[in-house]
């Protein structure tokens, strides 16, 4: 009996010590994280920016069933050509958007799996292990025909990756991945539709300006990083294009619905979409996207 007690005590003593160690590690990790959070939250000039995942952007843009154009995605064969961390991170974002886009296409192909494998390879290359695991690949395999499930998996993948990068203090890499994701999402969306096809969808595409603004402010927090600095420079054309759009503006009014306490927020800015603005958007986004996916010689 005593022997049993000694063994149990020994186990817990060992556990307590290792726990102390890992707790210490955890504490130091937490304090780094805390510093990061206080940096983000404590200073008045630092804000936490939330960016929607590519599938959320697509679901916001494509409100009606459209024939999507998979020929616009970046071919998986390009992936092996990205050899530096910058192009690997940017194109990881590009492929995440491609995966979200392909998941929205109701077809009988298995392209999504190919894209997920490339995403996993690029994640490994930028030291992001374990996000796309066998379990996720199996789930994709089992849900290839179920659009909603693929959307959920795509969203889960994006947010898991962002959380991992944020909590490991690799926000510069997160900026690069977000750059690829947002540019690719806008590129696929604008090339999916002609100006005279659906006014509402085009308006939704232009509304992504607000997402881009948030992304750009977030990225600017890390502009001292050499990778981020060059990427921001490359995005100037898109930033200028968005900044020079025309708006109609009405005063914002907030009222309360009497029956359910819901607030009704009406008014604000609305982008005026003209054919000229549409063509400018398409040209600028296509040029930047071509630069991002071109083999490594881009944005150096």
């Amino acid at each position: 009996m005593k022997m049993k007690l000694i063994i149990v005590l020994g186990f817990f003593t060992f556990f307590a010590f290792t726990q102390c160690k890992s707790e210490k590690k955890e504490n130091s990790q937490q304090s780094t994280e805390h510093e990061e959070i206080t940096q983000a939250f404590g200073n008045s000039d630092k804000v936490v920016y939330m960016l929607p995942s590519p599938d959320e952007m697509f679901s916001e843009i494509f409100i009606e069933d459209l024939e999507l154009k998979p020929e616009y995605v970046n071919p998986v064969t390009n992936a092996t050509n990205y050899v530096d961390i910058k192009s690997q991170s940017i194109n990881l974002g590009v492929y995440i958007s491609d995966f979200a886009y392909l998941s929205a296409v109701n077809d009988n192909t298995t392209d999504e799996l190919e894209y997920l494998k490339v995403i996993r390879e690029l994640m490994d290359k930028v030291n992001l292990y374990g996000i796309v695991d066998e379990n996720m690949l199996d789930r994709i395999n089992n849900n290839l025909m179920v659009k909603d499930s693929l959307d959920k998996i795509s969203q889960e993948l994006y947010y898991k990756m962002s959380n991992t990068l944020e909590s490991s203090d690799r926000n510069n890499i997160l900026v690069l991945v977000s750059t690829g994701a947002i540019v690719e999402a806008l590129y696929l969306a604008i090339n999916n539709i002609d100006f005279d096809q659906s006014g509402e969808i085009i308006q939704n595409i232009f509304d992504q300006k607000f997402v881009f603004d948030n992304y750009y402010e977030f990225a600017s927090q890390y502009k001292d990083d050499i990778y981020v600095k060059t990427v921001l420079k490359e995005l100037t054309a898109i930033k200028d294009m968005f900044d020079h759009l025309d708006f109609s503006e009405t005063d914002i009014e907030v009222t309360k619905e009497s029956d359910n306490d819901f607030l009704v927020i009406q008014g604000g800015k609305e982008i005026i979409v003209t054919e000229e603005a549409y063509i400018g958007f398409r040209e600028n986004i296509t040029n930047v996207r071509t630069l991002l996916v071109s083999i490594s010689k881009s944005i150096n």
Partner: protein
Amino acid sequence: MIRMKKIYFLLIALFITTSAFSQRCDNYHKSGDCKIYRSDGFEYYGQSRSALLEIKKQATFKAVFYGDRDYKVVLCTDYGYYPIHYVISNADTQEILYDNSEDDYVESVGFTIDKTQNLVFDITVLAEDVKPKDSFDLRVCVGVNIYWRKVPKLGF
């Protein structure tokens, strides 16, 4: 034998406590107080988030809210650290749209928005019952859980 049982009990309690302390705020917004129990067609919005905040210190959170959508935003923290004060404003005009101090620091707010805009949430954990001298920690997990749905069409 009873003594043995007591020792096992104490050791198990020690195990559970140490494990609990090693937890962080990840996915805190998906926990109890932040959930809504009647979905009414609302779906989870991916921009929901958790963070470790210092009490009585303002934190800022900025996100895009799309037009023609209904939103429900629920804020939560640990028991004993309430109330949470939050102010929602438009990022462009800095116009204040809602201040929950006018509603007794209610933890959730629902709104309909007709035009896409960037909204800023200024959040402060007031923790009125927590005194610095008797508090275990002045930092606490806070979750901001957002739900959305397309504005339902009226009529037949």
